[in-house]
């Protein structure tokens, strides 16, 4: 199938493509089936979330905005944001709230990793595993619904604590879900890791070397699969993680070697599901009694935040990797003075280039999916052009000028 002097041609993958569930564009230069050039074009959809948080909303409203940065990581974004606000305003969080936050965040990790396993299987045409994992995922979704009141947007974070306690019945419900997964884990592992066709499609595919992972600042399971033992829960523990003691999971714990391919990423994620189950058990066992929120009276909380002045950074290990929120508050102003979100996918998109160069077209969906990209988190400008070395940057002035021109143009048509 090697056709040597076949013309190079470019295939666009995205912004709308069945392999990518969200808008991003990959321009691939291909020679037959081999990829010789990769160009990633992000920022296909910008929603202006940070702008809203800096101009329209007060801090409490921003929690729900942060929850909607991403549909799947809807605990880690608000978690990260409230950590930043608490640091900025100097609020002490009660210990029980820390534990509850940890439990909910880990429940989210279980659901996110199972969801990912299904999507990855779908990308390589294995819909059966996709349907199985998503069916198994229902249990944790139901438990989340039971604990927080909703399946998806959990709405449990509050500045200074959490909004719902984990009562006896809720604890029972969580334990039931955990037992379910302990029982089913072997089956999931068997279906995903021991399947020959899955192995064929993922072993030695999309390799990211340790050096590249470090150079391109990969985060989360992508970095860990390449042998970088990087995990915010281990390096800068927040919540209850310091008490529990989390170790970053590397694929060699399971396979005995680190290759940094898609298979290793699957291994890391599945082991993390197991780890999360253990963390939740530990947290439920050791949860201290006490308040769940620093300031119960929301009116008081709002005026306290209005008076606060300062800046804070929140770092959270989202299912996809490290999430960072930077928040600055100014006295007398309700919206944040500045708010900056650095979502994990932002770091994990650039590694696509070394992963994809030299791969086949058939590898694109699974390699892209293996970083568990979440475009809704990522919306900044990255311009890379590997083959033609063309650099192209949009300056703020130029963007401003362009938007003024567009507004004029549109006004003429009204």
């Amino acid at each position, binding site marked *: 199938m090697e056709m040597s002097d076949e013309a190079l041609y470019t295939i666009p993958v995205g912004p709308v493509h069945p392999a990518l569930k969200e808008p991003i564009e990959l321009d691939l230069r291909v020679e037959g089936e081999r990829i010789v050039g990769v160009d990633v074009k992000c920022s296909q959809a910008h929603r202006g979330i940070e702008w809203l948080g800096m101009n329209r*909303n*007060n801090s*409490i*409203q*921003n*929690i*729900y*905005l942060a929850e*909607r940065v991403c549909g799947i990581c809807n605990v880690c974004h608000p978690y990260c944001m409230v950590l930043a606000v608490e640091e900025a305003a100097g609020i002490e969080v009660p210990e029980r709230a820390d534990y509850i936050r940890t439990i909910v965040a880990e429940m989210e990790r279980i659901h996110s990793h199972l969801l990912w396993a299904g999507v990855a299987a779908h990308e390589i045409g*294995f819909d*059966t*595993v996709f349907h*199985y994992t998503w*069916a198994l995922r*229902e249990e944790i979704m*139901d438990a989340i*619904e*039971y604990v927080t*009141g*909703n399946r998806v*947007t959990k*709405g449990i974070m509050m500045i200074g604590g959490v*909004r*719902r306690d984990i009562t006896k019945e809720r604890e029972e419900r969580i334990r039931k879900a955990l037992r379910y997964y302990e029982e089913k884990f072997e*089956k999931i592992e*068997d*279906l995903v890791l*021991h*399947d*020959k*066709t899955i192995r064929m499609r993922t072993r030695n595919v999309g390799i990211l070397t340790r050096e590249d992972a470090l150079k391109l600042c990969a985060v989360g399971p992508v970095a860990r699969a390449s042998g970088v033992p990087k995990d915010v829960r281990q390096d800068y523990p927040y919540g209850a993680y310091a008490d529990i003691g989390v170790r970053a999971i590397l694929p060699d714990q399971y396979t005995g070697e680190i290759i940094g391919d898609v298979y290793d990423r699957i291994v890391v994620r599945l082991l993390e599901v197991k780890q999360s189950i253990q963390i939740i058990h530990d947290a439920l066992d050791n949860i201290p009694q006490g308040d769940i929120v620093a300031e119960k009276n*929301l*009116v008081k909380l*709002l005026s306290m935040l209005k008076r606060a002045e300062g800046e804070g950074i929140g770092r959270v290990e989202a299912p996809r990797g490290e999430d960072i929120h930077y928040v600055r508050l100014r006295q007398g102003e309700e919206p944040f003075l500045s708010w900056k979100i650095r979502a994990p996918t932002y770091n994990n998109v650039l590694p696509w280039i070394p992963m994809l160069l030299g791969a086949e077209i058939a590898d694109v969906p699974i390699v892209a999916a293996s970083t568990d990209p979440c475009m809704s988190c990522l919306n900044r400008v990255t311009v890379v052009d590997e083959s033609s070395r063309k650099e192209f940057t949009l300056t703020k002035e130029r963007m401003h000028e362009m938007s003024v021109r567009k507004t004029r143009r549109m006004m003429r048509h009204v």
Partner: protein
Amino acid sequence: MPAITEVWKVLFKRPFTNRFPAKYAPRSVHGFVRRVQAGKAKIAPPVPTPPNFRGKINYEVDKCIGCGLCIRVCPTKAIVWRTVEVEQGEKKVAKKKVKIFVSRCCFCSQCVDICPKDCLSMSDEFLLANEDKLANELIVL
């Protein structure tokens, strides 16, 4: 290859899918709804909601004192002011109340938490899909 045996086992299992609202998509949704209303068809029940589920909002207008706190915290700006005429003895007085546009609501329940008079609460009603986002069912007065 575990999937080889697994698929045959699953073949004889009851499908995992919940049949809500019907096993197969009806030819016409409106027709189906009408038949259900006429008692000619039955809806397969949805998964039951857990206690403290956050569904459509309830508002007890009489208890409301019009403090406006709910308006202040609602992240989606789903709550707006409204004045009602209330008879107080002889004369009529305009009182400040609120109304809630459910189609904008994101079910965060923040207004419920902040309301000092507990006049807001969340029901477990979640079948709220509608073609008209300003339909009467979707405006809570």
